[in-house]
């Protein structure tokens, strides 16, 4: 099939799939940021069991293949009487894994702050929570804008996991495999979705470097 044939037949579905991919990406990334910050605070807090839990979380979810996690969520959770919809399973997988990377980037951001400012904050009488909110997290986030931009792109690519479960509407990769089981879309059907992936990534990259320039700390 040619591009114009594909577009005339599946154009609307492509748009729908792009929106689904965007939605999964946005929800996953927002969740990953929240979980990533919580895990990071655990990893630097004075309470040892929380530190161990945080490190453990990162070690597990940084090292588990996305597809394996999705299979566990779909097939194993029902054994624990936890039944999630396919959409929720995908969303969980595409949130938990980026959250681990998010925490790693924040940790290197914290390293970049340096012990001196931490000691200054403690000397002023800040509690751990105040120090985190006012000194550490704001700077760690600023230091990690560029890695976070890459993480957002990686999260989008990870949402292609959604193609492995029956979803309606489908994500971009899911749509490609849907088309090819019905028609001979061939590489062209993938070309359209990859243009959509790339276009989104370019926009994310531009916004990321814009934000980075805005918030960068002069050193």
């Amino acid at each position, binding site marked *: 099939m040619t591009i114009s044939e594909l577009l005339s037949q599946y154009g609307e579905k492509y748009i729908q799939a792009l929106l689904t991919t965007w939605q999964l990406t946005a929800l996953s990334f927002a969740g990953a940021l929240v979980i990533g910050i919580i895990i990071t605070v655990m990893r630097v807090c*004075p309470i040892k069991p929380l530190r161990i839990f945080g490190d453990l979380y990162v070690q597990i979810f940084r090292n588990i293949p996305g597809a394996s996690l999705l299979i566990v969520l779909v097939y194993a959770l029902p054994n624990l009487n936890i039944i999630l919809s396919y959409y929720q399973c995908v969303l969980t997988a595409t949130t938990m894994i980026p959250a681990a990377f998010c925490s790693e980037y924040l940790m290197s951001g914290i390293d970049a*702050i340096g012990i*001196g*400012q931490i*000691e*200054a*904050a*403690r*000397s*002023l*009488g*800040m*509690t751990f929570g*105040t120090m985190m909110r*006012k*000194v550490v997290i*704001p*700077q760690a986030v*600023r230091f990690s804008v560029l890695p976070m931009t890459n993480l957002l792109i990686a999260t989008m690519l990870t949402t292609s996991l959604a193609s492995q479960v029956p979803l309606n509407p489908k994500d971009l990769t899911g749509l490609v495999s849907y088309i090819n089981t019905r028609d001979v879309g061939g590489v062209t059907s993938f070309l359209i979705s990859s243009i959509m992936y790339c276009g989104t990534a370019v926009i994310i990259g531009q916004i990321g470097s814009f934000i980075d320039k805005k918030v960068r*700390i*002069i*050193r």
Partner: protein
Amino acid sequence: MNSEVNVTEKDSDKTIVELKHVEKYYGELHALKDINLQVKKGEVVVLIGPSGSGKSTLCRTINRLESINSGEILIEGKKLPEGGAELAGLRAEIGMVFQSFNLFAHKSILDNVCMGPVDVLHRPKEEVKKEAMELLKRVGVDSQAQKMPAQLSGGQQQRAAIARSLAMHPKVMLFDEPTSALDPEMIQEVLDVMIELANEGMTMIVVTHEMNFARRVADRVVFMADGAIVEENTPEEFFTAPKSERAKEFLESINRH
């Protein structure tokens, strides 16, 4: 200037900081050996000694940036808490000025000064801002208030850091080698601020290599070597007639260059 005269001038016998038999180890290294020290209200105590003698460590134990293995540290007669909100509350009353300034890099100079009073003492922002500007004026960096720390010279940053400490109205201020990271031409502007503070009656514990400052401002010089206090004396006597061999050697090694 005689130290006893000074103390009566500053009219107080109230002990602000007291260390009793303080011991600290870094693994095998015996970093602080049976440290006993009293600092009275309004006193300026200068800690000097060769590098590695434990003077910075001693300074940092007073607000528990360094923990101790045994002994006691009392602030206004109360034992220094080991952690938690109590320790944070006590740290709020002890000013600290670092060798590397340690201003918060993501905040303007003015915000750096306001943060302690606003976020720790929960004072109203407008009132704090006004006071912060006055403090910045006092240390001579009010024209830089809206700039970020990295846009200032080292001397200006250190003076801003002193203002940040002063904003908390500390009972005592600790200076941990405040001029060691500065270019020579900027040392005096920081020392001038410290001299002014001392003259106004601030209780100060100062770790420094600036012997002229020690001579001029200190009520008492505490000389340390190998983790122990070797000699405590008035600056006049310490610099002209040191009692211990270690102090003599140290002063000679300084005067050689």
